């Protein structure tokens, strides 16, 4: 395998052999290690000394089910911490099949121009990207496919990335060529923009494919693991049927659906924006309730959503997006939220960060709560680069500062997602302590708190939450390195034979003899590497805290986020 180093200052590409220390790393483990090794933690995220690293997971490109996840690592302009942002789509599989372990983009073009990277079996090439400047993601993809072939994967930034806004995402096309899968969180799109890279075209024609040391063993383990996913009620039935939006109702029932900028735990309009409502609408309009973000996913939580006239509007319409523009902004119109989702994908901004930001804009009185048309207009201004749009596009904290708002739900500058930390305390511990800023996926305690997966921990009490969050953060760092979708965790947490099967696949592919304990050690070492980077960037335990308004009681349960600093610091006791 190779690592490609693209130097944008010099306009050169170099293929490097994979160092021994990187050989058994992939995905997040690899991106975080390279960033820690090569990037000065005190650098400006948008300057020439930051780097952007793309890496497929260890199992990507193989027949392992749901293994096509891509990691992008950098120093985040939003949080100023280390960042790994993860996306589906077809990029990871194609990169892995091309024998590419990682692409490192460094430096900065001195001419201020934009370029396209073309990745093929012959290597990586820099092409002029001037013609794409100003274009949104759907058009960028269309244009590049017409030039380079319909089957290429396009990884791109929209205008938001060109403007280097902190909420900018990197879009990855799905199997249908739509830019609906994003490395959303942390402003990776702004870093790509700062490197002068508008798009990366990945063409895996005649790719050598992934070499597997012990094919028989791999096949057997992959088959078995696939079966475990399909037999698990969440992975095999819940996710394919209703997608992630099925969570709207259960969080609403549990009183943990943050509503009106985290004032209430329940939203009156929840029913109208629920996964069940979406399922009915999709079927009425001949959309697809079940859709995979990449070939080979067996859980297929994605969907294709049509507008009132039955025309394609958006895909990959997720719970967090629906919550952010929905309950958080008190908008109960699913079509309006779908339009906002489409706009985010097209402009290239994180739906969570933008949704939370629009709620903060409502808090500031720029538009009233519940104003769907106003929200669409604000988002358009982000895409057009208007002054207000540039404020909003830099995220919730920036917007709050610009308008003197103190009720701002962020940790380390990143917006808190769709679970109120007072009613789902375990995920609150993760928000506070994650190396990534507020991030539910970093340690998804919603499992044992709400979903009865991987045990049961009372979401309203403190007991057991710190241990739960720690264990999940460790396991997640490891899973994010495999290229497996994090949603395999539902099965892994419930089925003791699942994790050994993942280890079997890795061992068979790479000729290793790792044990389940090694996986835990890998997770710990990734977190330590990331924490160390953050410490050098100036972060201390006092940054591992939630905003003070979470001391206010939340209806309906009247609970607060009542962990002491010392208790939170116990998460990293290893």
């Amino acid at each position, binding site marked *: 395998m190779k690592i490609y180093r693209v130097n944008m200052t010099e306009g050169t590409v170099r293929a490097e052999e994979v160092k021994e220390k990187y050989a058994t790393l992939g995905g997040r483990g690899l991106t975080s290690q390279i960033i820690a090794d090569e990037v000065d933690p005190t650098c400006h995220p948008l300057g020439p000394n930051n780097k952007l690293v793309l890496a497929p997971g260890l199992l990507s490109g193989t027949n392992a089910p749901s293994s096509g996840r891509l990691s992008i690592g950098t120093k985040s302009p939003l949080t100023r911490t280390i960042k790994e942002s993860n996306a589906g789509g077809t990029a990871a599989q194609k990169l892995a099949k091309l024998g590419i372990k990682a692409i490192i983009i460094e430096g900065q073009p001195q001419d201020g121009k934009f370029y396209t990277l073309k990745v093929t079996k012959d290597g990586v090439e820099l092409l002029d990207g001037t013609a794409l400047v100003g274009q949104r993601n759907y058009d960028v993809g269309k244009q590049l496919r017409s030039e380079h072939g319909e089957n290429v994967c396009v990884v791109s930034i929209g205008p938001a990335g060109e403007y280097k806004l902190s909420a900018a995402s990197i879009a990855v096309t799905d199997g249908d060529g739509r830019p609906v899968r994003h490395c959303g969180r942390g402003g990776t799109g702004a870093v790509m923009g700062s490197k002068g890279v508008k798009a990366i075209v990945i063409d895996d024609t005649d790719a050598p494919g992934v070499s597997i040391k012990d094919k028989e063993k791999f096949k057997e383990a992959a088959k078995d693991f696939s079966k475990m996913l399909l037999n698990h009620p969440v992975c095999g039935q819940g996710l394919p049927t*209703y997608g992630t*939006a099925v*969570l709207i109702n*259960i969080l609403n*029932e549990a009183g943990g659906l943050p509503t009106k900028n985290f004032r209430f735990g329940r939203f009156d309009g929840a029913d109208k924006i629920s*996964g*069940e409502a979406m399922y009915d609408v999709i079927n009425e309009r001949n959309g697809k309730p079940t859709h995979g973000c990449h070939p080979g996913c067996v859980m297929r939580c994605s969907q294709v959503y049509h507008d009132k006239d039955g025309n394609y509007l958006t895909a990959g319409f997720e719970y967090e997006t629906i919550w952010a523009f929905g309950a958080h902004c008190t908008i109960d119109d699913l079509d309006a939220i779908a339009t906002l989702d489409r706009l985010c994908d097209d402009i290239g901004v994180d739906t969570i960060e933008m949704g939370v930001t629009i709620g903060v804009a409502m808090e500031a009185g720029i538009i009233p709560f519940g104003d769907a048309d106003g929200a669409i207009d604000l988002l358009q201004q982000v895409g057009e680069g208007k002054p207000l749009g540039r404020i909003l596009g830099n995220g919730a904290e920036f917007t709050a500062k610009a308008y003197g708002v103190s009720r701002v739900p962020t940790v380390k500058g990143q917006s808190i997602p769709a679970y109120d930390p007072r009613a789902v305390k375990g995920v609150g511990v993760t928000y506070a302590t994650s190396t990534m800023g507020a991030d539910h996926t970093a340690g998804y305690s919603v*499992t044992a708190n709400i979903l009865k*997966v991987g045990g049961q921990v009372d979401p309203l009490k403190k007991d057991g939450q710190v241990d739960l969050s720690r264990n999940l953060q460790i396991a997640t760092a490891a899973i994010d390195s495999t290229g497996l979708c994090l949603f395999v965790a539902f099965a892994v947490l419930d089925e003791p034979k699942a994790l050994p099967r993942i280890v079997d696949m890795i061992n068979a592919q790479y000729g290793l003899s790792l044990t389940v304990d090694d996986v835990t050690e890998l997770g710990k070492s990734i977190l330590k590497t990331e924490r160390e980077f953050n410490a050098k960037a100036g972060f201390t335990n006092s940054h591992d805290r939630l905003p003070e308004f979470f001391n206010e009681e939340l209806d*309906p349960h009247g609970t607060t986020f009542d962990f002491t600093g010392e208790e939170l610091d116990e998460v990293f006791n290893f």
Partner: protein
Amino acid sequence: MQLEVRLFANLRDYLPKDSKGQVKVELPEGSTAADLIKHLNIPRDLPLIIMVNGRREPENHVLQDGDRVGIFPPVGGG
């Protein structure tokens, strides 16, 4: 006693279509969540998540007049 009952995801199929997954149910005093599940004819082949007034409760939980009960099949996302 009267209960405010909501069924979610594919459990909605066990209520009349126009109910939108929400019904009022009359049960004798002292009934448990398990009694309610039986009353609604929900099959027991999958584990269920039962929420009473926003708190997860076991099946033997004794219900009270006016309780808001939500029942979910296994769901997930994130």
